[in-house]
Structures are given as C-alpha cells and as structure tokens.
C-alpha cells in the first residue's frame, strides 16, 4: 500500500522521490496512475502529488519561438487555447480528443508523455513539432529530444528520482502546416486504434508522428519535397514514411488492419493539414 505526500517545492518533490528508493511516483491528474495503482507490478510505495508545488513552471507559457508546458498543463487548457489552435493545430486537436470532458479537465500533457502508452494521443503531434523534454533530478536539469524520451510501453528515460519539469514545443516557421487524425472504434470515450500527426513544412516536406503502431509512439524522417497537389505523390511519400510502423494485433484491431490504417490516416492528416487554412502558421 502506498503512502501519499503533497510537497510544496520541487526540491521537496525530489527528496520524496529519493526517499522512496525507486518506488515513488508522481501524481498529477491521476487518470493513468490511479487506474493502474493496484495492478501495477511496480506499484509505488509513495505517491507524490505535485499539484501544490509552488515553484513549478507555469502551465502554459508562450514565448517568441516556443510554447512551454509545465507539469500542470491540462488537456482542457491546451485544447481550448486559440494560440495553440492557430500555431500548433495538431497538438490542439490531439488534446481535444483525449478521453472525455471530465478526463480532459484532469489529464495533463506531461502525464500523457510520462505514462508512455504507445497510444498516447498527444505524442505524435509533439513529435512533428520537434519537441524537447526537460527533466530535473538530483544531478540537476537535463533536456533531451522527446523522441529519445520513450524506451518501450510504459517506459521512459525519466529516472525514478527525476521529474519532468517542462515540455518545449518550438513554434513552427511561417508556412508550416500540421494536423492530427485518430481512428477509434467508437466516437464516445475510446483509445486510438491508430493515430497520426502530420507536419508539412514550407518546402512541402512531410514528417509523420505515429501512434499505436509500435512499442512507443514513432516519428518518421522528413520526406523529400512532395507535390501536395498530387494525391498520388502524397500517397507515395506516405508509403515510404510509414514503413517504420510495426503494429501488433490486440482487442481493438488486427495487425494488418493497423498497417493499412496508418496509411489511410497519414494521407488524411497530410490532406487536412494542407487544406486547413487554420493550420497556417503566421
């Protein structure tokens, strides 16, 4: 059985984690942690609730060329933010489909990445913007590209004595467009069968972030410039890019279905990015 603590400062958080000898876990929205608390084979002995920590970075901070998300940034804020909708539309759209209104009011962006589900909805979008993640631990701060953060299902490079303090999302250049597509079995609350975020830069190079088609969310390299007016060219480029996908079969879908759907969604995401004027960055 776990004990619960509610520290006031980041250093108290780090102390609590250190005392837990690798069995401490951070709690924010709890929409993942609490669900798995009893069943988790590595069940925490200490639950560290950081919602009262007063020296955390702000939830959402918009700078000239970057948007910074702190550990308390919730999906509801992200999906409702007009700046994000205009400049990081794939991220706004992905935050908008997480769970339900009640879930989005609690669920955090940082929690979504730390939970490290291959189906985490916001990760493909964070990938296409080239986001980085910053951790604080006993040895100080370190920053790594988000793509390097994920190790496997439920596993990240965040050490048991560390806390993710920030996600930085660079604001794309003018002319960059992006969109998010998700396939679910039903439109009510559901986890993704496949999800895709597409980023298309000013030179019409495509980058895809892919969910549910590998042990972690995946990101592709950038394609060569693509003639976006030619559907066949888009399909061809997508075909190349999605070859990194290695989906499995589970209760939601068979493997070959996921393989087919990642193509369908990728094409849709590219088309929707390039069609949507709202996706144009200024």
């Amino acid at each position, binding site marked *: 059985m776990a004990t619960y603590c509610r520290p006031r400062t980041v250093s108290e958080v780090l102390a609590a984690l250190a005392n837990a000898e690798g069995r401490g876990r951070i709690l924010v929205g709890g929409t993942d942690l609490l669900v798995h608390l009893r069943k988790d084979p590595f069940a925490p002995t200490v639950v560290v609730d950081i919602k009262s920590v007063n020296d955390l970075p702000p939830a959402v901070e918009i700078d000239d060329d970057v948007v910074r998300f702190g550990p308390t940034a919730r999906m509801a804020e992200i999906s409702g933010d007009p700046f994000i909708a205009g400049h990081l539309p794939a991220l706004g759209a992905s935050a908008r489909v997480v769970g339900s209104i009640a879930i989005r009011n609690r669920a955090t962006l940082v929690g979504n990445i730390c939970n490290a589900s291959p189906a985490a909805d916001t990760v493909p979008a964070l990938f296409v913007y080239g986001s980085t993640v910053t951790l604080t631990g006993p040895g100080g701060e370190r920053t790594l590209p988000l793509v390097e953060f994920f190790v496997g299902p439920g596993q990240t490079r965040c050490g048991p004595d560390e806390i993710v303090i920030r996600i930085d999302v660079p604001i794309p250049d003018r002319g960059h467009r992006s969109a998010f597509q998700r*396939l679910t079995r039903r439109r*009510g609350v559901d986890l993704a069968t496949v999800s895709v975020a597409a980023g298309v830069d000013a030179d019409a190079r495509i980058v895809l972030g892919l969910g549910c088609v590998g042990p972690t969310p995946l990101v592709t390299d950038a394609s060569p410039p693509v003639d976006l007016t030619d559907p066949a060219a888009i399909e061809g480029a997508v075909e190349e890019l999605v070859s990194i996908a290695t989906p499995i079969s589970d*209760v*939601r*879908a068979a493997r070959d*279905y996921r393989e*087919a759907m990642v193509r*369908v969604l990728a094409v849709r995401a590219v088309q929707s990015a390039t069609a949507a004027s709202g996706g144009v960055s200024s």
Partner: protein
Amino acid sequence: MIGESVHRLEDPPLLRGDARFVADISFPNEAHLRVVRSEVACGEIVDIDVSEALRADGVVGVWTGEDLAAVPPIDFRQIGYDELLPYRQTVLARGSVRYVGEPVAIVVAEDAYMAEDIAELVIVDIEPLDLAPVEAMVLEGEYGLVDQAFCEAHHVLDLELTVGRHSGIPMETRGLIARPDPETGRLELHGASKVPHYTCAAISTMLNLDPHTVVGRECAVGGGFGIRGELYPEDVLVAWAALQLNRPVKWIEDRREHLIAANHSRDQRHRVRAAVDQDGFITAVDDEFWYDQGAYVRTHGATVPSLTAAMLPGPYAFPAYRSRGHIVLSNKTPAGTYRAPGRFEATFVCERVVEAAARAAGLDPVSVRRRNLIWPEAMPFDRQLSVLGTSVVLDSGDYPRILDRLIDHIEFEQLETDLARRRSEGEQVGLGIGMFVEKSGLGPFDDVEITVRDDGSVEVVTGAASVGQGIETVIAQICADDLDMDYRNIEVVHGQTDRISRGMGAFASRVTVMTGSATRFATDAVKDVARDLAANMLEASVEDLEYRAGAIGVRGQPDRSLTLAEVGSASGGELRAKASFTTDHMTYPYGAHAVVVVVDPHTGQVEIERYVVAYDVGRAINPMLIEGQIQGGAAQGIGGALLEDFLYDGVGQPLVTSFMDYLMPTASETPAVEVLLSEDAPSPSNPLGVKGAGEGGTNACGAALATAIEQAIGRPGAVTDLPVTPSMIKALMKAAPAGG
C-alpha cells in the same frame, strides 16, 4: 388509461436522487465482503494461505472452499438436465478452478477498503493445467422430413456462422446485504432482485434454513437485462457469512469483477444447411451448433441453447427442421441469459439463411421472406418444438402485415433506388432487414393482492420484480383502467417476499403479461367483494349495484353510493382481494428491423444512418415505455453486432476486463430508433391481449446489420461472424466478391 403514454411512477425518486440502490443502504455494525478470485483459467489448487490476511488490521474473517464444504452447488432454476448436474458451480472453488474470476476465498472486514486490501494478502497457489473444454450434452429437436427435403432440394445452402461472447452490462453492478434480524430471527437479503422469491428459497435450501426466515428486499435496481439478479455464488457467500458472523454483511461488486464473474452470453458457432426449391421456398433447415457455456452451468441450465433451437425458425414456415445443439464447457466465465437469449443468435442464423436462399434462387430477399412466412390463417401455429417446459405454439400474428408495415414505412422501393444511386456514386451504403419472433409471458403463475386503503388509495402487491422496465407504472395503469381512478393513487409493491407468499419475478418479458393479467383479475375480484359488502350497507340487491369510478352505487340513483374506502371501513377493515393468473403457454410477439448503414471505404467503419424497428405486442399498455424498451434493446443489439466481445487469450486469460476494452455503444454510436408499434394480433391467451415487449429491440440487430454491411461493401453473404469489426470488414472488402 391503457394505451396512454403516461409518465413513469418510478421516475421522481430516480430523478431527485432519492432512489436507494443496494450500495446506498447500510446497517449499523455491517461488515464488508470481498471475494478472492482465481487468476488462473484452469488448474489445481495447491494451497490457499490465509495466515497473513487473518493477521491484518480490520479483518473479521477469511474462509475458503473447505470451510463451506457443506454448502451444495447452485442448482438450476430453469431447464436442468442430469447431464449438466456435474457442471454446477460450488460457491467457492474446491480443489480446482475452471475460469479466471472464480471465487476461491472470501474476506470479510470492517470496511470495504480494508476488505479489498486484505483480499490481496490471501496467497492462492494454483498449479495451472491445460485448458480442458468438454462437451456436456447435445440437445436435439426435429420435425418434418428433413433428409427427404434435402434429397429433393433445388439448392442446398451450407453456412458457418458465429456470434461472439457479450453480455448485459447494467449500470449498477451486482450487490447484496444479508442482515440477520435479531428481533425476528429472520435473514433479510437487501438487494435481491429479478427473482427474489426464488433466491430466498434457494438460499434457505442451500444453507439449511427455514424458508420462511429468509426475506428478499428488492431495492432500486440499475438495470438487469437477464444477467443481474440471478442467484450467483456471491449471493450465497454473503448470506453464509452474515449467519456465520451474526451481523450484516455487505458486498458490492466492482466493474472488473462484473466483467469476469457475472454471466456472459451468446458465443455460439453454427453450421447450418438449408434446402431450397426453385421459387426460394425453404423446405428444410438443418442446424448444428456449439454453445460455449463457459466454466460451469449456472441457474439457467440449458435455457439459452434450448431457446436457440426452439426459436430459430422465427416467423417462417420451414416444413422440416432439425437442430443439434452441443453444450460445451470451457474455461471462460460461465454464461447465462441476456436480453433475447438464444434468439439474437438464432435470428442471425435464420436470416442469414433466408438471404442466402434468395441469392440462390435469384430472387429479392423481401419476396423470399414473404414466400416463407407463416400466414395469419395458420394461427395458432404449433411449431412442434418445445422449450422451457411448454410447447411452442405461436398464439397469434400477422407476419406478412408487419413486413408490409416496415416496407411501407421505409418506402422500400424508393429507398432501394436511392441507395443504388448512392452506391453508383461511390458511396458504400446498404440496407438490411431482419424479421423475428420473440417469446414472452412465461408462466406458470403470478399472484396479485389488492388493498383499498382508508384514504382511497390502492396498494397492489405483486410477486414480480423491477428491472427498471416500468412495472409500477404499467401495473398501476392496468389497475387504474379497471377501477377507473388516477394511476398515481396506486402503489405497486414488488420484490418484497414477506408481502406475498409466492412470486416469479421479472424475466422472459413476463411481467406485463403475467402480473398484468393477475392484476386484471384482482381488480374484478375487488369490485365483486365491494359489491357484496355494499349491498347490505346500501340496502340494495347486488344486481342493482354498479361500479362507478372508485365507488359502488345504486343503478339509476346517482346520490346513493359508497366509495371503496367507505365500504372497507364500514365492513371493519380494508377492502382486499387476491387473484392469480396461470398459463401453460407463452405468447409470441414478432417484428422486423431495418437498418441503413454507410461503410467508410478506407477504414471499414460502420455508421448507422437509420434504424427502424416494427414490433407487434398485441396490445401496448404504455407505448412510451415500449419505445424505450426498443430503443435500449436496440442499443444493446447494435453493441453485440458491432462492438462488444469478451475475448480470451490462448491460456484462458480474459483480455477484456474494463470499459477500456469492453466497447459498449455510446450515445454517439446509437441511432434514434424509429419505432413502429402495432397491435394487429392481440394474444388470445390472456385477458389483456398483451405480449411482452422487452426483447424485440435486441433480437434482430445482428441479422439486419450483417445484411446491410455486406450490401454496402458489395459482398453479399460475406458477413458470417459477429461482432463485425472494421478489421473484418476491410478484410472482406479486399477478398474477391463472392460469385452470385
């Protein structure tokens, strides 16, 4: 009053939050029970170590199967066969386990949180064994000259069809409080539902109690659907623990437990052959099927496969029919009845056959249906099959007419033209129709006692139960109609076993038929009693008295009358009467579903554009309630046809143990169902002419959706398995179109 869509009497407390569900009820000094369940699908119990649990804070007691060795297994409530007796479930596992979720021990603690924590301290050592499916028995049914029909057939159809494993998921999970009453020496069961009289009697037998000392107290109920309220191991365990401890014991199931321990349903594989002549007339159907009963045979015995066998021919005349149903025990959660039990599956199979027959004969499926339907002149129609101890005699029905009603309503020809045009424009859109016969009003009896109170209000005590279907409203309407009074002045009592000596409860769409008919007789009896008593008081002869709106009066003399309450109090008490309704036969409502779907050509996802259910219930007491039943029933049928599936892995581990993976349709997936209620064929077998209305919304969903989807993707006959998932649809779309 009858036929009016009046508001439900049940709703005000539910809407105000005043309704008390079993979890809302507590008693001083109550203890809380938690069940320790097997994590292994098949194995020998090597050891159960309870020592650590017994040392825990707050523990009241821990018991295993050995402690309950004297408690017999749970018996069959319906359709028991000797062959099934060895597969009854004991309330705690003894020696071996047969499914993940099987109770192996119980922990009772001072509060529910402690109980849950302490249950994790019980160490259960199970030596896993290979899964061991066994066939328990084969059910056989047959009429007509089947083999001869196949010899003479123009076309012989041969189909393999499956229906997945899904079940009713009531919003309220199961729960029970057993409370020994120190004053009366009785054991109260709060939360007993669906069949409270049966539950109390069975528990008293199993625990060697005087049957009069076990009292069922139904509370507000958050759904039933056939699965909730059956007698389960947990109910007996709660009662046993309460007696052992001589204090109230409460158990509230959590959702994971519900998904692995409450009855599953469906899960059938059929191999069906049919003989068809050149005009599309089906001369024989020969169906062999395998029903996965799960690990044990529970209260329903062979009910589900028996209903599949007896109801499969549906509304069709099929001159010859043979059914062989294999009951297979596996290492999954045990199965039982769920809304339209055995019939959701049977209608899917039957309508697949009809569609295939139409293709074989090169005719349109609607006219092939017409050709095969039983005609109204043939009613009552003896199916020459029996089920649930009654022979299947279709009591009344105009099957061609309900098909016409549906066809007219959807403007079939225009719709087909529109859909063909949309298909030619590249859309994948299709229409499916499914016809079905339901069964309802299972006997053998129901009693009703009516009391007119001093204030003129009326109490109707029934032996029925509420599963949320609106029994209080419907019974009050029937009573108010007869007594010519306001239905809001009538209180309907149900599920209280000390108020009435026997009762059958609520299942098989029986309450309106059985309890409703008994109510009709009881109101007649009340009037008779009142007339006899009033004759003296009014100094008139009985023949000169008449009943007028709650009073007995002298004919032709408007000012000489006594209200029923006055008659009661003048006779030194309250006016009372009692009546029973008995029947040997069920009554058979029938109907048809039509659905239009659009299939996304890229993802294979199905969008329901329109859903219509035509249903003939003989006589609709409250049309609004029936529409609600159909809407909700259709949501469940759609779920079973497209989404819901209890999957297992190769070693019997359930893969679907939460709402993350058990995908019920939400409001977004559930269309507003257009309901066409008709009253063409009142039942001749009860005084109201009613037929049950609980299950028709579910029955033909699989059948209609299968046809609609394959028409949409241009692969007639391709859909053979439910639920039809987007993965499957994409695979079917890739496969070459079936010839013809």
